[in-house]
């Protein structure tokens, strides 16, 4: 099945970083929405489903996407401002109410973590979801680095239509025909330059102007704001300490809940007892899915009560003895297991004689550890449920909230706060279920459920532990490569967990994307084991560990053939000019091939993900048994740019996030439970560990917008591992990297 932009589809589909339950898809024009969708306050006027103006001259853009640091509030406002001819200083954003108009279509097209072989499955699931889930259509979600890709046309269209409406209103005010008026710098002017009205002066004149046809959009060459490094809209509040994150929500009569979860996966409360009576600050003790919560006037008191005044015994989950060593053995035994997916590219050689190069790589489970610990505030009012939370998909939170409270979705309202980091973790609905379980016991009282960092690290949905067995066959040059990759599928698990979709047993799509290299023959066998460990979408999803496997092995192949690793890749990218240009740029800017001091090495890696292509060169200094990443040079081709400052910031962000994992990230299991607990044993890169970074944006003339939130992460681990090899001759095949 081909997914085209002119096709209306209803379906149930999982997206990268998130999910679509049912799928609303339509012409761009239908995404304009109606001004009636917006909450219009006194002194404001709605122009369409995305844009309002206010008497004080502000332009307010509806942004139904999560601002988790990636700059989407700013980027979406820029798209509107560009076509509206607004001044950047007058732009503001607002979280709109739920509507199909705001749903992310792109996440269901390019963000799909399904392998291409599964298009039949998608259709099946679509029908299943459509019938089972009925009213759920589409998904408002932030993930898969899709926000700008999704908004590129609809938000500019919304700005252009708003501008046309203001031209009509100004014409009415001034008596000058609209054709003789233009919009510029937040005003409507005569073509000869005289100002007819500021936007804010037209608030009372637009009310009865009807919807109008979308005018043609500006060509990229005429952009004034888009493509410029404009300041972010969210920064002033963030430096003042005034930005409201989920944990900062304060409602009248609010109480707080601390939670403990069963240590083993799938475990639950067997029994509990309170030592010496409930202290006066504790109002309720509530069993929640997989754990128990104490509710009181203070989170700290509730947490202390669970720690000191409370005894609970747990019923173990299905694998109470599981440990990491056992699991690795299980994965090794699956190298020759039944693949869930086999794919070949090129003509299979008749025989594979000659020499063989083999290697096994490992990547551990990883937690997300966003800085803001997990939380959700819920208020149950009998026939209504209100949720305030940092989340990546209000549609899914609403669905989960409705199911948990036994209400219809119309009775549930979700308020999305700023997110203190998301990284995929905040697409999960577990916090909603817990908060609703607590709120049902406290009708009329808002309950803020907050997890300690220990609960966060021990009860995450982890990046899957994964193993790859790579083989290359040479017979007077390369003749074939073969990869077997083993790992659970977050897509499958998420579908079951979040909305009850049937599992497909197929690998997550990002993990099995085809390599860009022109191998004479490529074969992939992907094995998808079951497992009790919950896995989820971790920034860049399958790309993160797969890039480590693939880009480490191609380095080994280069070494085996006694070629320079950059030149070796380059030669295999003859058919991929964009990839090659990005690789070349990173190498050139990093001074690839120039001399380095002894004990220092450079490593290169390339990965295309989420519509963008990124190459990185890491420079590593090794002393004794330690190493330090001194410098990272990054090149990206993400197609048309909205805000280059944000693109650079996202590349640096992706590098640091990936580097934290490469240097420190390892979740291990013992007795069926996670061993790590806090930043002391699950550390992150700090200022002193952060390399110097330089980001170079490659303009290939591509016209398709690529994502930037995730693509910076995948190349860093292999770039560093390859640099360590260059410096020492030692090949590290497991993450985190340890000499």
């Amino acid at each position, binding site marked *: 099945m081909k997914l085209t932009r002119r096709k209306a589809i209803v379906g149930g589909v999982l997206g990268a970083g998130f999910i679509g339950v049912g799928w609303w898809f339509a012409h761009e024009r239908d995404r304009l929405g109606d001004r009636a969708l917006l909450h219009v306050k006194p002194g404001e006027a709605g122009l369409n489903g995305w844009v309002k103006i206010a008497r004080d001259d502000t332009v307010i853009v509806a942004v139904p996407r999560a601002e988790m*640091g990636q*700059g989407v509030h700013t980027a979406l406002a820029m798209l509107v401002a560009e076509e509206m001819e607004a001044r950047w200083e007058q732009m503001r954003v607002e979280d709109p109410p739920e509507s199909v108009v705001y749903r992310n279509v792109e996440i269901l097209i390019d963000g799909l973590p399904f392998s291409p072989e599964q298009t039949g499955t998608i259709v099946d699931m679509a029908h299943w979801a459509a019938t089972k889930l009925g009213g759920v259509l589409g998904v408002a979600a932030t993930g898969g680095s899709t926000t700008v890709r999704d908004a590129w046309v609809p938000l500019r269209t919304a700005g252009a239509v708003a501008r046309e409406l203001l031209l009509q209103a100004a014409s009415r005010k001034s008596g000058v025909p609209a054709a003789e008026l233009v919009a510029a710098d937040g005003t409507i002017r005569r073509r000869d330059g005289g100002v007819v009205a500021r936007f804010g002066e037209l608030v009372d004149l637009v009310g009865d102007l009807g919807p109008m046809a979308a005018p043609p959009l500006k060509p990229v060459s005429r952009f004034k704001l888009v493509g410029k490094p404009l300041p972010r809209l969210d920064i002033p509040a963030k*430096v003042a300490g005034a930005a409201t994150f989920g944990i*900062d929500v304060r409602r009248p009569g609010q109480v707080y809940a601390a939670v403990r979860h069963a240590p083993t996966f799938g475990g639950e409360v067997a029994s509990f007892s309170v030592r010496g009576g409930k202290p006066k600050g504790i109002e309720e003790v509530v069993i929640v899915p997989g754990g128990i919560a104490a509710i009181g006037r203070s989170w700290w008191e509730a947490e202390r009560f669970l720690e000191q005044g409370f005894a609970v015994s747990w019923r173990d989950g299905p694998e109470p003895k599981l440990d990491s060593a056992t699991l690795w053995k299980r994965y090794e035994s699956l190298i020759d297991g039944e693949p869930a997916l086999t794919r070949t590219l090129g003509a299979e050689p008749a025989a594979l004689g000659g020499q063989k190069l083999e290697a096994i790589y490992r990547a551990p489970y990883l937690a997300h550890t966003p800085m*803001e610990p997990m939380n959700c505030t819920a208020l149950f009012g009998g026939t209504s449920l209100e949720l305030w939370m940092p989340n990546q998909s209000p549609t899914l939170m609403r669905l989960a909230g409705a199911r948990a409270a036994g209400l219809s979705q119309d009775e549930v309202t979700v308020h999305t706060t700023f997110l203190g*980091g998301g990284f995929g973790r905040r697409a999960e609905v577990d916090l909603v279920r817990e908060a609703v379980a607590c709120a049902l016991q406290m009708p009329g009282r808002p309950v803020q459920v*907050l997890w300690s960092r220990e609960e966060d690290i021990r009860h995450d949905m982890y990046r899957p532990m994964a193993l790859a067995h790579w083989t290359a066959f040479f017979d007077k040059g390369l003749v074939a490569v073969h990869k077997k990759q083993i790992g659970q599928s977050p897509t499958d698990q998420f579908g079951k967990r979040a909305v009850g979709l049937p599992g497909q047993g197929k690998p997550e799509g990002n993990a099995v994307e085809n390599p860009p290299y022109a191998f004479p023959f490529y074969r992939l066998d992907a094995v998808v084991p079951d497992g009790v460990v919950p896995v989820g979408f971790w920034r860049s999803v399958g790309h993160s560990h797969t890039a480590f496997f693939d880009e480490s092995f191609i380095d080994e192949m280069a070494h085996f053939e006694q070629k320079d690793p950059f030149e070796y890749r380059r030669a295999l990218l003859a058919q991929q000019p964009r990839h090659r240009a990005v690789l070349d740029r990173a190498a050139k800017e990093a001074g690839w091939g120039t001399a380095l001091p002894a004990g220092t090495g450079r490593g290169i890696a390339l990965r295309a993900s989420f519509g963008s292509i990124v190459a990185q060169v890491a420079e590593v200094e090794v002393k004794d048994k330690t190493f330090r990443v001194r410098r990272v040079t990054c090149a990206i081709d993400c197609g048309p740019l909205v805000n280059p400052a944000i693109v650079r910031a996202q590349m640096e962000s992706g590098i640091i996030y990936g580097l934290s994992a490469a240097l420190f990230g390892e979740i291990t299991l013992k007795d069926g439970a996670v061993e790590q607990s*806090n930043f002391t044993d699950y550390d992150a890169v700090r200022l*002193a560990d952060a390399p110097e970074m330089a980001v170079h944006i490659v303009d290939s003339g591509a016209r398709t917008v690529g994502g930037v939130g995730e693509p910076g992460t995948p190349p860093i681990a292999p770039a560093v591992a390859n640099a360590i090899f260059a410096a020492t001759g030692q090949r590290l095949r497991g993450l985190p990297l340890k000499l």
Partner: protein
Amino acid sequence: MISLSVNGKWRDVDAPDDKPLLWVLREDLDITGPKFGCGIAACGACTVHVDGEAVRSCSLPAGGAAGKAIVTIEGLGDNSVGGQLHPVQRAWIEEQVPQCGYCQPGFIMATAALLKSKPRPTDQEIDDALTNICRCGTYSALRRAVHRAAALMAGP
């Protein structure tokens, strides 16, 4: 009852002495700029000033701060509209440091304390003083902003 001086105002709080300052600020005084990140003084998101020193408030019993001058991000500069932000906050805006922004109040408070004792810190001194965690990886911009704040505070 604990008497605390927070952002220049005396506040009486009915909380146990051993309740950490962070939670007294957040729950009893509704001052939410200092953030909870780890609870064990490992990440620095909760950093405030106590008598001018940067302190990780998640691990300081409020009783221990009684009578001392506590300053949070809300009281660092004049955050009101048209008010004069602290030079560190201005530098943070000029260098566009925050991404998700959750850890930034802690970094800003730690930086302001650092610059008081070391007006022109070296990179090494910055590394040693700012051991907070930022999961968004804003470190490059953050380092530039520390130097910029130092320059702003030194004056023309």
